[in-house]
């Protein structure tokens, strides 16, 4: 019996040894796709659904060419270009050109986010939890887990491309140009999946690795934003960004394919880099070795809020730097906005929906609203950290001491509130400082810092929703994201879609917007604050009454 066992081993040995570093990649790929069998379709369907929805609504909102041309005028404006795309074909704006100019960048960023999350989830996150070690102790090649993650992410992007293609063609758009848009989104996704494959090698921690890749994505969006704002059709800066490359195919206007080759080339370079980095390193290790810390906790750390702050510190700093850069760059276009408004007063009307104050301030407040949305995203992520704390048993360990549940929850919330305040302040300061520098009015920095803080109640309102969702754990957290993303989409695209005023007015970010230099309207701020506090209280109450998960 031993002899046959040995013989079968020997056969298997010779049979399985050949694949070398990639052995079991297929098996791991199938496993990754199985784990993501809901996640990937949800991303793809949501993105295609957005295109389908716009395809239905825009012909209603912009029934004729004249209406479309008013929209095209926004693209000629630096502020409009900054947020959307380079602005091709604005002389004869069509539905296709509109989607390619204004939605492609957003969709590409979404595909990039999806890819970053997927790659990190299947590489560094697995490594951090020790599961890679369990897998690699089997007959699995050194590069199999990374390769499987990349194949899975390629399949996910192919699915996104296919569904976008169907949605675009379903809207009656040209097939070839639709393919350029859809493939552009998928390729940007793949490019940032490769960025994540590199950052996954750098840090020992999944959160840091996603954070680094996310920062690269943010930078790419800003680069093309500034580049597009500088010049109609994009400038040199636009060409530094993979998102810019996808937009430079000029789909539905004057199609060219070669910018997509840049995405492909960068992907190849990044992947070579990722594999080189992965080849020589230990499982579980990052390229930056962990430092030693202090032996004794400081007085600040032993307070629960101090501990939470320590856990959140890196993330707050990362967000602050990203938002500051983005805001300062946006603000620095202030002079350009003023110039274009002076030459073409009709833009002022479009951006001046808020009334009162001068054109520049009103326009910048519109941007501030967008930044406040990003801060709200931070706040919800920050609250949702509690879920992981609980699932991994740390909350149970803390609550087993003489720490009460409300105390624990409110300490954590205090950190979220502090982080949100800092982020809003930094964003407002960056926007005001950038604008102030461009028009020679330094006092704008302080004006906008204060104005930005007016968004704190609405940010805390969304944090409150997340707290309530945490208290009512069984309901899941998806509805908070639904409300937040819904508010963001209405806030950004609502005016474009000619949604009813009642809907636009109910959108929380528009509700609290204040224009610096005008009288403060405290009523909505007050109501929003009351709502946030009520949500905190309800969430805390629900948390007190439920079972702990782990």
């Amino acid at each position, binding site marked *: 019996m*031993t002899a046959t066992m040995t013989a079968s081993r020997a056969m298997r040995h010779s049979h*399985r040894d050949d694949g070398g570093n990639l052995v079991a990649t297929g098996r791991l790929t199938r496993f990754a796709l199985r784990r993501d069998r809901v996640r990937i379709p949800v991303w793809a369907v949501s993105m295609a659904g957005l295109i389908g929805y716009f395809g239905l609504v825009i012909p209603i909102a912009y029934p004729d060419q004249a209406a479309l041309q008013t929209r095209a005028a926004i693209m000629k404006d630096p502020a409009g270009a900054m947020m959307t795309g380079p602005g091709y074909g604005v002389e004869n704006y069509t539905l296709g050109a509109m989607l390619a100019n204004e939605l492609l960048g957003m969709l590409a960023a979404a595909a990039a986010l999806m890819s970053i999350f997927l790659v990190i989830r299947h590489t560094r996150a697995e490594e951090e939890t*020790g599961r890679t070690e369990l897998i*690699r*102790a089997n*007959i699995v090649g050194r590069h199999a887990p990374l390769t499987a993650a990349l194949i899975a992410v390629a399949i996910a992007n192919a699915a996104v491309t296919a569904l976008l293609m169907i949605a675009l063609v379903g809207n009656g758009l040209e097939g070839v140009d639709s393919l350029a848009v859809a493939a552009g989104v998928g390729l940007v996704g793949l490019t940032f999946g490769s960025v994540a494959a590199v950052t996954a090698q750098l840090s020992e921690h999944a959160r840091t690795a996603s954070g680094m890749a996310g920062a690269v994505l943010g930078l790419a969006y800003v680069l093309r934003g500034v580049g597009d704002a500088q010049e109609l059709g994009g400038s040199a800066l636009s060409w530094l960004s993979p998102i810019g490359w996808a937009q430079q195919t000029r789909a539905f206007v004057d199609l060219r394919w070669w910018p997509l080759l840049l995405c492909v080339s960068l992907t190849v370079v990044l992947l070579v880099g990722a594999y080189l980095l992965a080849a020589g390193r230990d499982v579980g290790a990052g390229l930056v070795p*962990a430092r030693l810390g202090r032996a004794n906790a400081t007085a600040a750390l032993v307070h629960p809020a101090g501990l939470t702050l320590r856990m959140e510190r890196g993330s707050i700093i990362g967000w602050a730097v990203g938002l500051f850069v983005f805001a300062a760059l946006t603000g620095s276009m202030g002079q350009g906005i003023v110039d274009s408004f002076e030459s073409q007063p009709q833009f002022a009307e479009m951006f001046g929906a808020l009334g009162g104050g001068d054109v520049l301030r009103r326009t910048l407040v519109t941007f501030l609203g967008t930044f406040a949305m990003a801060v709200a995203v931070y706040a919800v992520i920050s609250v949702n950290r509690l879920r992981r704390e609980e699932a991994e048993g740390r909350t149970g360990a803390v609550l087993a001491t003489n720490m009460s549940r409300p105390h624990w929850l409110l300490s954590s919330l205090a950190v979220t509130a502090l982080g949100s305040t800092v982020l809003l302040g930094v964003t407002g300061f960056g926007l005001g400082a950038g604008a102030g520098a461009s028009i020679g009015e330094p006092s704008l920095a302080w004006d906008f810092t204060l104005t930005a803080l007016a968004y704190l109640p609405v940010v805390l309102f969304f944090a409150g929703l997340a707290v309530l969702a945490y208290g009512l754990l069984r309901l899941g957290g998806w509805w908070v994201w639904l409300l937040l993303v819904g508010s963001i989409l209405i806030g950004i695209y609502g005016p474009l879609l000619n949604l009813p005023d009642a809907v636009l007015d109910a959108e929380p970010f528009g509700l609290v917007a204040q224009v610096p230099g005008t009288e403060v309207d405290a009523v909505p701020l007050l109501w929003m604050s009351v709502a946030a506090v009520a949500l905190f209280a309800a969430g805390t109450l629900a948390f007190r009454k439920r079972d702990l998960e782990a």
Partner: protein
Amino acid sequence: MSAVIDVRQLSKSFGSVRALDELDLTLEPGEVHGFLGPNGAGKSTTIRVLLGLLRADAGDVSVFGQDPWQKAVGLHNRLAYVPGDVNLWPKITGGEAIDFFASLRGGLDRSRKDELLQRFDLDPTKKTRSYSKGNRQKVALIAALASDVELLVLDEPTSGLDPLMELVFQECIREAKLAGRTVLLSSHILAEVESLCDKVTIIRQGRTVQTGTLAELRHLHRTSVVVVCDGDAASVESLPGVHDIRRDGDRVLFNVDDDALPAAMGRLLPLGIRSLVSTPPTLEELFVHHYGNGAAVGAGGEQS
């Protein structure tokens, strides 16, 4: 026959921390080898090097005569690994996790899986999220034990198992030994090592301090004696080689070096022994001897 595992002068640092410092470890085919050391001694680091997950900084490491860093995949054909802390994917069942691991090593003997599930009393239909630490550990153990391999690498495999399950585990290891498999068992549970292992290697601060068969290690150490005499047994205290003497009611307890045992017995006999219990040193005592204080290191054994 050549050694299954042969580690010489293995060193590994993480940044400025020296985890392994010229460590030696040898396993002959068919032996169950205990790998003992306090927390942080470098047991898991050594095992990860043996699996080709970490790259050795210096020294020679061979598993089945090959370099595990270069030949990890081929070597993993021939070994199975169980870590001390098993983390599983939350949304799959225990049975699915076992099959997944099995599929990574080219198939599974279903009847063997069923048999092990029954012996370890594990419900394979539950989601891994709901498993306790012990149950997650069972998943990894069953996946490893059900595989047809020559070497089992077990890193504190019973942490989290209850005493009954530990007995099942010991049975399985004995069966593996009968089947001619080699086992590296890193452990804190000394009774387990005593009852299972042919040889033991003790490490401390990344260095091998002692290695040998249990009999050899015992030979170098002491016997614990508990005695009740008509006279005063405490008078043995004056003999050389008698240590740690103390009184507990009528009883006198002491440790005696093995070569001083005849003299101690000679002293006790005339005192009228009413009861005497002598026990070989437990591994706890070996541990205390080696790790209780730094000065004790260097006593006996195959020093390296």
